């Protein structure tokens, strides 16, 4: 999430809460004058060093299920800190702890024989950014540790803005090294290495519109199979490409902001996916902010995914024609099937005195084969639903 149009806390936040019409006009005049001052005029759209620090705490409760099976439950506290240093530096870091438990089908959405799991995940990341008059450069590192999976990543990113700060180009590169040691010892010390590239442009279109176009490419080599699924043998190479288009628009009439995005995804597994997302941030009186959101997702199946039609003699989970030395890539993982998914959510935030704020967000996610767009979904799978509740508190200083 590097292509910020504005560093957090950088610019005034003039219109939180409702204002009387006269006050609003006066506010706009004062704001206009402020932005005309030397040194302040870059605030809105250059990538500038943040002036305020932010510390945030969040607690997430996630539960998903399918008919007849409570699947994964995650309880996850997290902490995030952004600290400006000496006016031209910023340090951002976060810590996340996931307490994961539940059950996961070993093939398709089969309930019987589902694998039980109990896991803990600790993840941390750190990013240091140096800001320049017309750009920024940052270096980041990320770490994630589970008892059977460890991931380490480093990244570099840079941005350059046009003289009027209306156009910003961003470039990034990253390398991730993962080590996989499943508890069932089906493989030992397996590895996966992914090299990622990114290029993007952010453009101010009008005083109320900003758009961003991002391209990313990831080339991964190594162990992509799921060690806890039956008959799962995936290619040892996966190349992924994304095109992401985002558009934020301020609506004068309501004082709200619409945030729209479309992502097109394709990979060398043969999967194509479309993601549409929309949210509307509506400030209300008394420091309240309400944000309803919706997301529609659709994907085609991996070329080696097989439907739940099984071998005439061996039965499930083996596909027809299966032999025990079968070298073909194969998977019965629901995540590689063709399906569509919808997410609906609402977030309520309250700004309090002394730069404190609290928020709560509810979301419901559902995945169904029949919801695939532009094609038919994979047959014979159960729908998956999830509910997600997040509670957060933030303090600026």
């Amino acid at each position: 999430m590097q292509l910020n149009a504005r560093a957090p806390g950088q610019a005034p936040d003039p219109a939180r809460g409702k204002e009387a019409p006269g006050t609003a006009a006066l506010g706009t005049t004062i704001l206009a004058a402020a932005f005309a001052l030397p040194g302040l005029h870059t605030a809105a759209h250059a990538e500038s060093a943040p002036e305020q620090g932010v510390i945030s705490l969040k607690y997430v409760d996630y539960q998903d299920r399918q008919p007849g099976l409570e699947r994964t439950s995650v309880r996850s506290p997290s902490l995030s800190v952004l600290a400006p240093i000496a006016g031209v530096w910023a340090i951002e870091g976060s810590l996340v702890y996931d307490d994961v438990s539940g059950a996961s089908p070993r093939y398709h959405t089969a309930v019987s024989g589902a694998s039980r799991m109990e896991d803990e995940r600790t993840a941390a990341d750190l990013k240091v950014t140096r800001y320049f008059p017309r750009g920024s450069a940052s270096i980041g590192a990320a770490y994630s540790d589970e008892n059977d999976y460890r991931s380490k990543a480093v990244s570099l990113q840079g941005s350059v803005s046009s003289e009027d700060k209306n156009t910003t180009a961003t470039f990034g590169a990253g390398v991730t090294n993962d080590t996989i040691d499943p508890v069932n010892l089906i493989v030992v010390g397996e590895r996966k290495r992914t090299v990622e590239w990114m290029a993007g442009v952010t453009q101010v279109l009008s005083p109320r519109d900003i758009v961003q176009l991002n391209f990313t490419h990831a080339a991964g080599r190594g162990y992509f199979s799921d060690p806890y699924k039956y008959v799962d043998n995936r290619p040892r190479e996966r190349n992924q490409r994304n095109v992401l288009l985002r558009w934020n628009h301020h609506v004068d009439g309501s004082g709200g902001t619409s945030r729209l995005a479309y992502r097109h995804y394709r990979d060398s597994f043969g999967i194509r996916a479309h993601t549409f997302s929309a949210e509307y941030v509506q400030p209300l009186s008394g420091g309240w902010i309400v944000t309803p959101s919706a997301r529609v997702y659709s994907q085609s199946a991996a070329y080696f995914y097989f439907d739940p039609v099984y071998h005439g003699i061996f039965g499930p989970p083996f596909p027809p024609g299966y032999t025990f030395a079968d070298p073909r890539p194969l998977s019965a993982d629901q995540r590689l099937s063709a399906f569509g998914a919808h997410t609906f959510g609402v977030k309520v935030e309250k700004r309090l005195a002394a730069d404190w704020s609290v928020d709560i967000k509810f979301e419901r996610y559902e995945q169904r084969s029949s919801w695939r767009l532009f094609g038919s979904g994979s047959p014979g799978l159960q729908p998956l639903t999830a509910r997600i509740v997040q509670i957060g508190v933030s303090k600026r200083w």
Partner: protein
Amino acid sequence: MRSAPSLLAAIAALPFAAGCSAIQPVQPWEKGMLARPEMSFEGDRLEMKFAEHVYFSREAASGGASVGGGGCGCN
């Protein structure tokens, strides 16, 4: 499907490729609205991280907004 990304990119890049000649350059004093937190593409950092984590573990597509976020088992 193969041409979809390039077609989309071409359409999306039109305003940029046109040298923004059709777009009136926005002046510094007109950027008050753009300075609001909700006009930033960053959003709530922890919330976005968790959303990426959830979708990464339940869907095949991932990424698009940044690089170097690291991986997880997430089964």
